[in-house]
């Protein structure tokens, strides 16, 4: 391998790492929003991602069967629907399940884990037990070549753009909107928030739905780089926890940095080693770093 080839390889591997990065980042963002707001660790978060992916798949199926002419345009509305369907399911789950368990963090952990199993079974029984893929529009396929030896996949650029859009949207919502003020006030002091007139139950439900909706977007992004099966979400949940734990639950920049380094490390290492070895190495590095710098961990915050 010449030096030039090594450079191109690293660049391309870096771009494929970017796609993983964006999915992980969206997942971590949703998980961290929910944890920061109400101290709930949502073990079913990966299944909300799967919901988003399945929504895109269903849209693609419907388009193929009933309106093949729309193949080039169905994808964008499908992404929007992925957000709203996952969000709506989250809203209902909060109302029926999470809300009753707020003062019992361990029960929440167990209940959301059970929920994740139930949702996987639902996917298996009612959608497809095997992996499915959405029929992607032409404009998401292929790659362009900035130099003759480097290819940048178009889907990578799309998910990148989507992630930037979502992160910016979340940032604006949190820092510039009345909803953001409500969410931050409730996170800081739940009792006082209610005493100034904020309906904190509604804020919780909204936030949970928002976090699940963002997981749905992660799933939609995921359809451009892989196929979706009933357990696809659970494969990502561990990496997502890693991102959140490593980056610190409370801050966006930390989450971005940690999603970036974990995704890039894995994808570069995978080129040289098996993917299992890449995971082991990433995990060990994180453990060592956390031993030196434990403040990256979840802060111990419970509802008061």
């Amino acid at each position, binding site marked *: 391998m010449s030096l030039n080839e090594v450079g191109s390889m690293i660049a391309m591997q870096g771009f494929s790492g970017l796609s993983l990065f964006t999915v992980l980042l969206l997942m971590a963002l949703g998980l961290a929003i929910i944890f920061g707001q109400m101290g709930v660790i949502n073990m079913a978060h990966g299944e909300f991602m799967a919901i988003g992916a399945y929504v895109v798949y269903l849209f693609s199926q419907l388009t193929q069967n009933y309106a093949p002419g729309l193949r080039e345009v169905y994808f964008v509305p499908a992404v929007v629907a992925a957000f709203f369907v996952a969000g709506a399911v989250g809203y209902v789950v909060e109302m029926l399940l999470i809300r009753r368990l707020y003062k019992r963090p361990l029960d929440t952990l167990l209940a959301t884990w059970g929920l994740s199993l139930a949702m996987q079974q639902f996917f298996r029984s009612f959608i497809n037990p095997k992996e499915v893929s959405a029929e992607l529009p032409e404009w998401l396929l292929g790659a362009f070549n900035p130099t003759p030896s480097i290819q940048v996949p178009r889907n990578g650029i799309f998910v990148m753009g989507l992630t930037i859009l979502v992160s910016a949207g979340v940032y604006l919502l949190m820092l510039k909107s*009345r909803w953001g*003020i*409500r969410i*931050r*006030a409730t996170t*800081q*002091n739940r*009792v*006082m*928030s*209610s*005493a*100034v*007139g*904020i*309906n*904190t139950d509604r804020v919780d439900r909204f936030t949970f739905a928002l976090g699940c909706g963002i997981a749905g977007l992660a799933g939609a992004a995921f359809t451009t780089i892989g196929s979706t099966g009933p357990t696809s979400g659970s494969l990502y949940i561990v990496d997502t926890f890693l991102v959140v734990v490593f980056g610190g639950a409370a801050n966006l920049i930390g989450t971005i940095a940690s999603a970036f380094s974990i995704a890039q490390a894995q994808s570069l290492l995978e080129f040289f080693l098996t993917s299992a070895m890449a995971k082991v190495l990433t995990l060990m590095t994180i453990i060592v770093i956390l031993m030196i710098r434990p403040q990256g961990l979840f802060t111990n915050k419970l509802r008061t």
Partner: protein
Amino acid sequence: MIEVNDLHVSYGQSEVIHGVNLEAKEGQIVAIMGRNGMGKTTLFKSLMGVIRSTSGSIKVGGVDVTKMPSYKRVKQGIAYVPQGRMIFPSLTVWENLLTGLEGSRTGKFPTDIFTLFPVLAEMKTRRGGNLSGGQQQQLAIARALAAEPKVLLLDEPTEGIQPSVIKDIAQVLLKVRDSRRITIIVSEQVLSFTMEILDRLLVIEGGRFTADEPRDKVDVGEVRRLLAV
């Protein structure tokens, strides 16, 4: 404006408020004085719905709020400045004030807030947690007033605050009583501040009101003796 009937409040098995009755009219400042641990904070928290009462009733402007959660009571017109201020430290001053609008019926930010608290106008973009104790207390009062309440509850607003700021706070309370005709219920241990603003004095001892006097009947020596024990 506010009507409390035979209110009982307990922490677990131990009852702390033993059947309190209270009626306060609009445009009146009612001071509740009592030593540490007599139940002032407990009474305020139960009026606000932060803790549940075991029995009795609370009405605001004729509406029974006894069973309502805090945020609904705010909509009915009670606002609360808790002991220890409890502003939102990582929100800016302006964002703290906006949280006060959540309970407002008009949804509009009252124009006189910054006239009443000029110091807050200068610090709009600062984080609440970076304000001094006195400034935080003013912010907590301004946040409560932003909701344009009918009844304002203040739990020991002068605790840990320097005399000049205490004077400012007294002036603000007198001004809003007169301009907005609201009912103000304030718990206190500082006699000079209380005497400056009160229209009526209640003394609380062991979870019961033991005295109820209009301003001109208050015997300062007697009250001082009660608080000193």
